[in-house]
């Protein structure tokens, strides 16, 4: 929050989602694809089956182009993006997990080197060495996931870390193993969903049938593992998170709908995978495309649920999505948000509206834009001054609830008891809250009035 604030009409959260979801599609394929290629080539060598070895060869260029090029760059892209949109959270993560990331980097070196080596040594080394390289690749790629899963799941369920601030408590948090199982399943199902296309290009009918069945096996096993992981993950969430999207009357209905999409997409994918497994000769391109889209939908939606249920936090029970720490609410209420958010404050000329705009920049812009994504102008349009005053007072009072301990249950803030469980509390001095109200009311004016010299 004491960083400059990037003006992005699409919203920073949307940008992070685009980069992150693109990256995870690719990176999970890089892992599952590595395993699938290793198994395919191993079977090809053991069975002296040139068709299987050709399949591994055909897929290996894709693995290089996807894994070492796009995967590597988009992985850095996530860092770049979160550093731009959530610098305070990135800094907190780096300070806690730098050695974890550094260890993951060690595995990444091995992953990149073996991926390139594997592709470069087709027809040049003995089969045993070639197999060793691809199995090393898979080991390195999976170990990257083993580490990164700890950091990703930590943000949603920091568990005992909140008290101990221990690296290991944070990594082995309540959703670490369920999430790892879920992601393992996703790696497998994505490998099957992508590589079935390569299998279908096999000209020999018998060989094609065998290979399609093998890839469909990845799809089915992956889908079952992912389902088990997903349900275990849901079960491991603290009650304060579960009530947001589970149960008969979820607090955030949109997330409950997304959860249904997760399950239905997975069910559709499983059915298509079973069909391809049982009748591989009937497998056709449109079915494979639909299965791939179902896999993307399942994975994208499950990531959306995971990100969505983390709100209003970026690191649950520690830091809100606007960078305000739970521990600093009282202090900010005393001294003012603009005393901390100096970059936002520099844009204020002291008038209530400009001061309110600065408060908006500091506290709201992490999730809202004025006219773009999650538009504040649209959100405040139906509210008159009195209504807005009540909403802002409630939001501010919720900050007191976080600090008073009244709603603390089992070490978690029981967000289901808040009126705005998906929003960080409003913090700042009464003068700043009034200024924010003035700014929000100014958004009622037609946009044309903001244009200089407009009539």
């Amino acid at each position: 929050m004491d960083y400059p604030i990037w003006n992005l009409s699409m919203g920073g959260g949307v940008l992070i989602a685009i980069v992150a979801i693109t990256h995870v599609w690719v990176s999970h394929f890089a892992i599952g694809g590595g395993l699938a290629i290793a198994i395919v080539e191993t079977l090809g060598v053991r069975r002296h089956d040139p068709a299987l070895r050709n399949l591994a060869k055909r897929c290996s260029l894709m693995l290089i182009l996807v894994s070492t090029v796009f995967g590597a760059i988009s992985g850095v892209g996530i860092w770049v993006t979160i550093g731009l949109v959530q610098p305070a959270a990135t800094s907190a993560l780096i300070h806690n997990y730098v050695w974890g990331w550094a260890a993951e980097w060690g595995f990444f070196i091995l992953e990149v080197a073996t991926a390139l080596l594997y592709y470069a040594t087709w027809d040049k080394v003995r089969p045993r060495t070639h197999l060793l390289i691809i199995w090393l690749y898979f080991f390195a790629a999976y170990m990257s996931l083993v580490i990164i899963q700890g950091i990703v799941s930590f943000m949603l369920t920091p568990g005992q870390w909140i008290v101990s601030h221990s690296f290991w408590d944070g990594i082995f948090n309540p959703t670490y193993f369920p999430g790892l199982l879920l992601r393992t399943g996703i790696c497998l199902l994505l490998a099957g969903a992508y590589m079935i296309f390569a299998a279908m290009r096999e000209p020999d009918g018998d060989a094609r049938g065998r290979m399609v069945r093998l890839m469909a096996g990845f799809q089915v096993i992956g889908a079952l593992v992912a389902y088990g992981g997903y349900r275990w993950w849901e079960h491991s969430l603290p009650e304060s998170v579960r009530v947001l999207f589970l149960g008969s009357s979820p607090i955030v209905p949109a997330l409950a709908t997304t959860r249904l999409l997760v399950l239905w997409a997975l069910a559709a994918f499983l059915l298509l995978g079973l069909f391809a497994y049982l009748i591989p000769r009937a497998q056709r391109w449109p079915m494979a495309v639909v299965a791939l889209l179902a896999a993307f939908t399942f994975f994208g939606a499950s990531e959306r649920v995971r990100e969505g249920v983390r709100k209003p936090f970026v690191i649950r029970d520690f830091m809100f999505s606007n960078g305000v720490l739970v521990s600093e609410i009282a202090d900010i209420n005393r001294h003012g948000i603009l005393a901390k958010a100096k970059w936002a404050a520099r844009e204020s000329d002291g008038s209530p509206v400009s001061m309110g705009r600065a408060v908006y920049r500091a506290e709201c812009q992490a999730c809202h834009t004025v006219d773009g994504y999650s538009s504040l102008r649209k959100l405040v349009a139906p509210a008159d001054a009195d209504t807005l005053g009540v909403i802002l007072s409630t939001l501010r009072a919720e900050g007191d609830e976080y600090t008073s301990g009244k709603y603390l249950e089992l070490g978690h803030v029981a967000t289901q008891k808040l009126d705005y469980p998906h929003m960080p509390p409003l913090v700042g001095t009464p003068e700043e809250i009034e200024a924010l109200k003035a700014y929000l009311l100014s958004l009622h004016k037609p946009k044309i009035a903001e244009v200089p010299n407009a009539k």
Partner: protein
Amino acid sequence: MPNSFIPALDPAALPGPPWLFHVLWVLTFLIHLIFVNMVLGGTLLAAFVGRKKPGAREVQTFFVGLNSWVISFAITFGIAPLLFMQVLFGRFFYTATILLAWAWLGMLGILTLGYYLNYLAKFRLRNGKNVRVVVIIEAVCFLTIAGIQVAINLLHLQPGRWESVAQQAWAALGDPTLVPRILHFVFAAVGMAGAVLALVATRRATKGVDREACQGMAQFGIRAALIATGLELLDGFWLLFALPEEVLKAFMRGGPATMIPLTIGILFGLLLLIVLAQITDPLAQAKKVRRVAEMIVGAVVFMVVTRHQLRGIYLAPWRGEEHVTVATQWGPLALFLVVFVLCLGLTVYAIVRASKDKPGPGEEAA
């Protein structure tokens, strides 16, 4: 020096002693820079090698082929210094990146484009097609990335300029050291790529590969290295004297700690010029060609140290009130060291085994 726009220090303790992060940062940056130099310099040489020169096609094939490995390693080894830098100077670095957010984010798109263009060039070369335009665009991509990196790294050192850049992002280009810094990287990259090209050509010649092509490659590489090193020395002095007065004075007052690495770096440069000028027939002077490559790496080592020291001097006034607490995470640190050694060992083992385990005559290959 007070500056209200510098974000507060992260409240979390450093998970290791600062000196360790500095050492890891410098070491990993050095490796990253060697790969980056090969990518940038190699692509420039491949783009501008004279069409009719003997060995021109081999020059392009060599660098385009090399790039498909080296770009990956440049990215991979760029992750670690970025990580360690964020632990120590995150509040300065994040601010600079946010002020130039579109350039910082756009760099990834440009990098992706450059990398895929390299694969396009590789496949075109394999099919005997012309790649000049593709490689020129690729070189422009990498030059742009170099410019963005230098601009952001320079900006994070100068909180005093942040407000003007926040008003107008182009103000980031207004620093008098920006151009000589970029040129310093570019000349070093061309010098290193030229030396490596000549070294590879001499090795190939000893194995009986087309001598005329090898001669062309080696001469082109040595000439490029000579010109780039000469310009690098001139640019180095331009950069030194373009530094802000207080920074230059503090650097000079640093005593042996700052003056020795700089002096050795400059001496390496001068010696390089002399040796390069003596090489008239690279294939016949293979030993000297190897010396050149070694000296360039040596010069880069000392210049990386100097660069790191300059960063400390730039930032010192802004970090006067910084009180860092340290709570070393011994277990995770040990995990990193074990994983790093294991993975590096496995990488070397895989490469060595792949280079030795060739199938015999009539034996099945993978």
